[in-house]
């Protein structure tokens, strides 16, 4: 197994774990943690490609931007989650079931 493949497996695994986390956690904050895992999975890919493929330095630049954007997104997502909490008095995402159909 080459190093690159190892990285890619780790990236894919983190990605999948993130998705599973998003799809199973009823706690809104937990869902957001899943988002972080997903983005990290992609980031591992970027860095690995930067090290082992023709993407070279651009991969690292991508990774830096992803970190920045993930932070921004986390901030907004958290604000929205707190807003949800204020209105519903719970962070259980399953309580947001008024909009459907």
């Amino acid at each position: 197994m080459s190093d690159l493949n190892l990285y890619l497996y780790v990236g894919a695994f983190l990605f999948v774990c993130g998705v599973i986390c998003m799809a199973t956690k009823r706690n809104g904050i937990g869902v957001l943690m899943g988002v972080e895992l997903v983005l990290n999975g992609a980031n591992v890919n970027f860095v690995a490609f930067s090290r082992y493929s023709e993407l070279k330095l651009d991969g690292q630049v991508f990774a830096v931007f992803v970190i920045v954007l993930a932070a921004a997104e986390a901030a907004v997502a958290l604000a929205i989650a707190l807003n949800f909490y204020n209105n519903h008095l719970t962070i259980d995402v399953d309580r947001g079931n008024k909009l459907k159909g």
Partner: protein
Amino acid sequence: MFEQLIQDLAGDNGSLYTGLKYFSAELWLSGTIVVMLLLRLFSVDRWIPTFAVALAGSAIALWGLFGQFTELMTANTDVSIAFFGDMLRQDLFSVFFRMFLSLFLILTIALTVLTGIPDNEDAPDFYALLFGATVGMMMMASANNLLMLFLGVEMASVPSYVMVGFLKGRKPSSEAALKYVVYGAGAAGVMLYGISLVTGVLGTGDMTLLASRLALVSDGVAGLGDPEVCVVALGIMMVLAGLAFKLSLVPFHFWCPDAFEGASAEVAGFLSVASKAGAFALLVRFCLGLSGVEATAELMTAFGVALGAVAIVTATFGNLAAYTQNNLKRLLSYSTIAHAGYMLMAVAAMMVMQNSDQAAGLGQEINAAVGGLLYYLAVYMFMNLGAFAIIALVRNYTFDESIDSIRGLSSQSPALAVGMGVCVFSLIGIPPFGGFFAKLMVFAAVLKSAEIHWFMYVVLAFGGLNTVFSLFYYLKIVKAIFIEERPAEARAVTLPSMEGLYVVVLAVMVTLLGFFPAVTEGLSSIANAAGNAVLSVVGG
């Protein structure tokens, strides 16, 4: 090293200088954000209403873009320049979309002024978000690099999440925002992962190089048996999934009805048009970046067909699901989904034609497909915003957004009723309103592409069939407005002239686009020129 840096940044012909010129509209919008926030900081917003600043800022941006537009139209419509380190691309296509977006921004601001959401206290926040999202969409329209693709989508999405939850004291609003943000984050994650695969294997983020690089890594003809091609195809799929989220294509549409129902009608109107426009521009660029090389043609035709299939499913699902809705915003959100399906048909047709072996001879038709898409979007802007505006205006009187609120509206406010009638008829695609011509152009493109791949006949058939499906729920609206009597207990809608004027202006635009040859032809020729511009860089 540093000399080069300084030369590039500040030299007479440094790329930065030209880049800043091309990027001036976005800079104006960004500047306006800062100005609005500063004005509130120093409490100047008591004397100068924030919306005035916002209007001024967006008007200047539009004006600047108009300058660039006339320059391109008179000089060379085919030119396409990559600037800012090849991050963005300046061509007629991008300018068209940015003009479109800034015009739409102005219209949205005007609507928010009329409906009073937001109040003056929250206005800087709201407009900052609106402007931030618009800047993101503009960058989507001119993105030339997968990083800009992701950045643009994020910049457009993240402020949208907040805008959906802008009515922060209301349960549906916060629920909608949460659903939107989680779904959006998931989609962004998938897209990012796809980008990592594509860039990793192909070794570049430059969209114009994708096709040629893909031809390099595949030995001869790109087939899915080739592991590299397989990974790239998977990556492309994931990127398309991210775009499909923005376009609310089935099966990535789940957020759309919920978010629109929870959001205020103004925001829903903005999102339904603007973010679609940006995402379609990006989709076209991405698809073209993958096309035009012989080795990948077959694979990309398959992608085109897949897009066609998604278009069918999307249009059909949207139209059928809208049938049972009673909330107008929700109904219109399904209609939005359906329209995205129609528009996607144009992209699918473009993709199929661009990757056929007769592509060289089909330049005109491919161009017409892109032109049809742009035309569709332009018409869609007016008719959809009109519909959402009327919902918002009526809501201010009835405090209700269900279909009951517009029952018998024609007896109370003829202007709103006629405006809604025009918008709905145009949405159905009844001639001679603009919506009809838009559909006609798209279907004509699909028909042409059907000569290349039989599946496009199926797409065409479903497209036609869907106009019939859509009739059911649109007629529900028409019937409610014009035929049914207003319930006695319903609150009266007494419209001030400004609001009526706004609706009438939108309705007149929809009508103009259908009735007046100069307007229609002008727009379609501009759209075609823009399509031509984006096609000129195909194949790297």
